């Protein structure tokens, strides 16, 4: 089971406590009181307005305003509406949703139920990535407990509201974290993203109006309903309110999860919370939000971790997966690992992505081997530029950005590989 965070906040303060995983333990700490309050005191549209006013942004990478997303769901329909909990966490460097599913499944479930009440959804599909067997089991156990206690089913907490949750497991494909790839997979197909429009709120799962939210996003919702907008906005920045879970990995003395307000500076996360770079090494670079997000060199990590600030440095918060690299690290090898991943996980339906990810990996790999050519660096940027914004989903962008970031800040290292026809950093990690 996932280790509890080193620094906790409202999302994770009880996650170190095993009893919190059970319905009784969750209720003993105030669990399901926010749901009861929403059902008793709020209408669905008031619930949406409250969450929208809180400014909560989706925590799955894109950062879209959750309340706004909920408001896209049609109010009256001639059939069922669905909610999807996206538990396909697969962004390399991210491991926060797994903690919430394994150590606080009822908190996620309470957020789901409030979301379902707000959007009028009759069923939620909780899509858990295939490798997260423990998380899927914990979530299914929590759903069973809630059903037995009348928190799920035909009469949620005696309110007359009807809802059920179906836990579904994926089978190993990064692209199923993309919301329409997920919907395809949920329907028993290859997870190839859909062309939009129609958007999921019009025609999503099984052709019905659907809203897809990330696990952590749901976990914030009960706290907003229980404590109000002003309380929620007392954390984080004006544009990016609330806390989030930063997962820190790589070359740090204390890798782990840290729940901190959005806007916490990246250098504070790396040096104070994660205790800096060990073994007498110096910091070289940090990826701020999972491998899709462009790297920042050591000199540029004095930046608040919120999209409005990270944007100025041409990167983004992504999923909050902070990957730290010391000065032994070869950045061409970093590019090789990342580009291999995207080549492997491209679903193959768009030419720019299928061919582009393969060419980027092939070129990076030959540069690392010492077989690079003078024109290779410009070719990489050319290929990356032709993938961005040209495909059905954002996967191609996510594959282009890290290469662009590495060349923006470490171009000299790529040039040295080509010039010297070998890797100038032989002590770097192996690929």
């Amino acid at each position: 089971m996932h280790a509890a965070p080193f620094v906790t906040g409202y999302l994770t303060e009880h996650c170190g406590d095993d009893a919190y995983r059970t319905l009784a333990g969750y209720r003993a700490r105030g669990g399901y009181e926010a749901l009861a309050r929403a059902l008793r005191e709020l209408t669905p549209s008031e619930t949406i307005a409250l969450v929208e006013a809180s400014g909560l942004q989706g925590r799955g990478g894109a950062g879209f305003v959750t309340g706004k997303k909920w408001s896209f769901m049609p109010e009256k329909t001639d059939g069922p509406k669905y909610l999807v909990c996206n538990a396909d966490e697969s962004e390399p460097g991210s491991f926060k949703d797994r903690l919430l599913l394994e150590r606080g499944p009822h908190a996620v479930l309470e957020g789901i139920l409030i979301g379902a009440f707000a959007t009028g959804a009759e069923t939620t599909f909780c899509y858990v990535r295939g490798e997260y067997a423990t998380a899927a089991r914990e979530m299914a156990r929590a759903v069973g407990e809630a059903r037995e206690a009348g928190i799920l089913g035909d009469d949620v907490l005696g309110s007359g509201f009807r809802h059920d949750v179906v836990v579904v497991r994926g089978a190993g494909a990064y692209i199923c974290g993309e919301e329409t790839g997920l919907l395809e997979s949920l329907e028993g197909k290859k997870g190839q993203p859909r062309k939009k429009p129609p958007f999921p709120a019009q025609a999503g799962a099984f052709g019905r109006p659907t809203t897809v939210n990330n696990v952590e996003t749901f976990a914030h919702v009960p706290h907003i309903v229980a404590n109000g907008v002003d309380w929620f906005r007392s954390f984080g920045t004006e544009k990016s309110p609330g806390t989030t879970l930063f997962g820190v990995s790589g070359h740090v003395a204390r890798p782990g999860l840290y729940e901190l307000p959005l806007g916490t500076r990246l250098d504070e996360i790396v040096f104070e919370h994660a205790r800096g770079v060990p073994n007498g090494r110096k910091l070289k670079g940090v990826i701020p939000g999972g491998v899709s997000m462009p790297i920042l060199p050591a000199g540029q990590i004095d930046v608040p971790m919120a999209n409005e600030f990270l944007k100025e440095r041409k990167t983004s918060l992504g999923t909050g997966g902070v990957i730290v690299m010391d000065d032994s690290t070869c950045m061409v090898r970093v590019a090789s690992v990342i580009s291999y991943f995207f080549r492997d996980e491209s679903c193959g339906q768009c030419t720019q992505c299928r061919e582009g990810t393969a060419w980027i990996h092939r070129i990076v790999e030959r540069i690392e081997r010492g077989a690079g050519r003078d024109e290779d660096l410009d070719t990489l940027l050319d290929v990356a530029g032709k993938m961005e914004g040209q495909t059905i989903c954002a996967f191609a962008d996510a594959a282009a950005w890290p290469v662009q970031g590495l060349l923006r800040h470490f171009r000299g290292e790529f040039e040295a590989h080509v010039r010297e026809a070998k890797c100038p950093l032989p002590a770097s990690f192996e690929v």
Partner: protein
Amino acid sequence: MIRDETRARIDAEIARFPRKRGALIEALRIVQEDLGHVGLDAAAAVAAIFEISIVEVMEVVSFYNMLYDAPHARHHVGVCTNLSCALRGSREMLRQLEAHLAIEVGGATPDGRIHLGHEECLGACAWAPMMRIDDEYHEDLDLESAKRIVDALD
């Protein structure tokens, strides 16, 4: 091909979805648990249950890493080689496991005990290097502990 008990489990899955087809991936997982992999005969049987073509079943099997269209060893040992694990020595660990088991990545021991593979990020980045064995995670590994865990597999 598909035992009554397996068929009953598939039917229970189908009942959880608004459309039958939604249960296909779970049905394939169930069949694979029973048969070890999803070959053409099994795919044909599943296709009949779902009233779709065999090719529709096989394109799903081939799309997902955790579904196998050919016989697979009893235990799947997958070492994460994505960035956070690579920075902390997962490639060396994988290389040592190859030598220890005398097989290459992507291959299986001749006795059908272990398939050794590499995996993309499994969401255990702070406890790198790590590996997945079937449905279990093994974290904070070093060369010795990885070998010990693999040796203990039946």
